[in-house]
């Protein structure tokens, strides 16, 4: 029985009129997250775009409790909340981290790894817009090869760090990738995560019109192309069992994937790429798929 958008409550806890950019995937993601998990949720937010888009004191766009915290500290701060609530017998509250890619794959990784190793009862969601967007589009460990940022003006020379697999290597109960363009998949994974005890990690691919240089009406379209080209792969690792999710599960056959060119040609951040660069990106995607197919053949990877 799969979820439908209309099954979600009409109530919004992430309120409209917030100061996010037009077409912002973070705002959309936070709205879906709160609709899915409901009001018995405490959200920890490190420095990221969501620090700003929740609004400035004394106003807020959030009708749920938020603990804002320093850049590197979100998984640790969430651990403290979880332990305090457990001690006080208030374990029926979801404790969620909502962090950007910089705060997750770079500066926040140590605290996240520690919380994962301790198997803290947290839903950690990284909304990955593939650069430090809040500070003005600087390269992060999650920025893909070739992408222009203000600190890689000729294009990034290295590939994206594969954090979901790093999190899976911690052996935590649940790891999933998701995309803002596939909301049913995202909310299904959130619901599942909220029912599992221990550390849950969801990596949400989040195309950013401002940073990626595309029209604000194209967020969903670009997110879909990321998945359909196989650049972003939807999967989950539940108790160690690796599983591809639709539509990525029908892209095992390389011929069914759209060429990466169709994904990058509509983004300004890739406009300078040469044929050689595009070939390198395509090769990287194909290599990543070889890894996922191996994991699929193993089945239970931990």
């Amino acid at each position, binding site marked *: 029985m799969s979820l439908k958008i209309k099954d979600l409550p009409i109530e919004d806890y992430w309120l409209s009129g917030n100061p996010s950019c037009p077409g912002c995937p973070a705002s959309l993601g936070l709205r879906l997250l709160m609709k899915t998990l409901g009001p018995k949720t405490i959200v920890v937010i490190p420095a990221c775009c969501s620090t700003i888009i929740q609004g400035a004191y004394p106003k807020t766009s959030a009708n749920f*409790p938020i*603990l*804002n915290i320093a850049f590197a*500290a979100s998984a*640790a*701060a969430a*651990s403290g*909340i979880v332990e305090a609530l457990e001690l006080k017998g208030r374990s029926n509250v979801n404790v969620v981290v909502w962090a950007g890619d910089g705060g997750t794959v770079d500066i926040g990784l140590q605290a996240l790894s*520690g919380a994962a190793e301790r198997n803290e009862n947290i839903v950690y969601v990284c909304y990955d817009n593939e650069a430090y967007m809040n500070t003005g589009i600087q390269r992060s460990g999650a920025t893909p090869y070739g992408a222009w940022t203000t600190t890689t003006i000729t294009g990034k020379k290295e590939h994206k760090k594969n954090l979901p697999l790093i999190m899976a290597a911690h052996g935590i109960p649940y790891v999933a990738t998701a995309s803002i363009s596939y909301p049913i998949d995202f909310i299904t994974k959130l619901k599942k995560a909220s029912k599992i005890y221990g550390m849950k990690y969801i990596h949400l691919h989040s195309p950013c019109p401002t940073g990626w240089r595309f029209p604000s009406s194209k967020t969903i379209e670009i997110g879909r192309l990321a998945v359909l080209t196989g650049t972003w792969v939807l999967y989950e690792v539940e108790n160690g069992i690796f599983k591809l999710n639709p539509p990525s599960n029908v892209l095992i056959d390389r011929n069914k994937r759209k060429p990466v060119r169709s994904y990058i040609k509509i983004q300004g951040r890739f406009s300078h790429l040469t044929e050689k660069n595009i070939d390198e990106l395509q090769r990287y995607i194909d290599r990543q798929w070889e890894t996922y197919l191996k994991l699929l053949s193993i089945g239970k990877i931990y």
Partner: protein
Amino acid sequence: MRVVLTGNHAAAYAALLSRVEVVAAYPITPQTQIVEKLAEFIEEGRLKAKYIRVESEHSAMAAIIGASAAGARTFTATASHGLIYMNEMVFWAGNARLPIVMAVVCRALAPPWNIWTEHTDILAQRDTGWIQFFCEDNQEVLDTIIQAFKVAEDDRVLLPVMVGLDAFILSHTATPINVPEQEDIDRFLPPRKPLPFILDVDNPLTHSNMTYPDQTMEFRYRLQKAMERAKRVIVEVDEEYGRLTGRRYSGLLDCYRCEDADLGVIVMGSSAGDAKEAIDKLRDEGYKPGVVRIRVFRPFPREELREICRGFKAIAIIDRDLSPGLGGILYTETLTSLYDLGSRPIVQNYIAGLGGRDISVSDFKLIVRELYRSIEEGVETIPIRWIGVEGVKL
């Protein structure tokens, strides 16, 4: 109950008696015995608390912040590099006005590696919005940590508190300690009250969201006012604790034989004991010095210090710390407080005991004798003295 405890175990017993609910800590020499003992208390079921075994001090303070924001009474301990590594979160806790208590085993910073006592680590945190205590002995460590929770959680204060104890001299030296009865401490320190800014799904609010320049200064102003109010609260709490246990510590300043003193030695931490012994001996020789031990460094006891220094012809400020390029940190703060005193005493700075070097009773005697000589000769300033450093002699 009278037991023999190290300063570290005294700190752990204080946290036990205070019924802390969440502990998050990362091991560092010489703090380890505190967190080992607390882990033991928790695992044996003597203390109903959660212990988060974090992967760094930065995460220790972050976890404590989360737990405190969720309403728990929280405690951690660190030292030296650990304290400096958590610096960002120490500021966060102070600016967030969370009533956290932390034991700081004061230790030198590397390089070169050195695990012995010095106050530069804790004094580097003086601007973080934390109340700072320095202890003279292990009994005071235990009593001050219990008092610290009462001060931190007071509605007029709502500030985190760090309690400093000197590495090894206190942390690893066992002395007989009076451990209060749990029921007495329960009466003195009831469970933490839910504050208006607790994370609560039934009454949602956002903590620490962004402020524009037209709002931020008001937060700092309120923090400053809370620090000012804390002075009175610290004294009240000390008095109440004194009525309960028979032990009190004169609130902010501990003045020893100052009533008729013509000269004062200003000191912090464990070396106050040696200073007092030196002063006793010098009194036998006919001199009339006194010792002023700064017990609370933040809020700085400016008025109290001015009042006591008014009667001195000269003061010696002993800094177990260094602000390179200036001198002692306590010296600077004291001078600032005395600037507009009218007739000021001669003020002399001594850097001593860095990296755990002994400051002996005879060092204190030499210091006091030099000050009397300065008074006689009418010398107003002498260069900063480095006690015990080769080539720098009194």
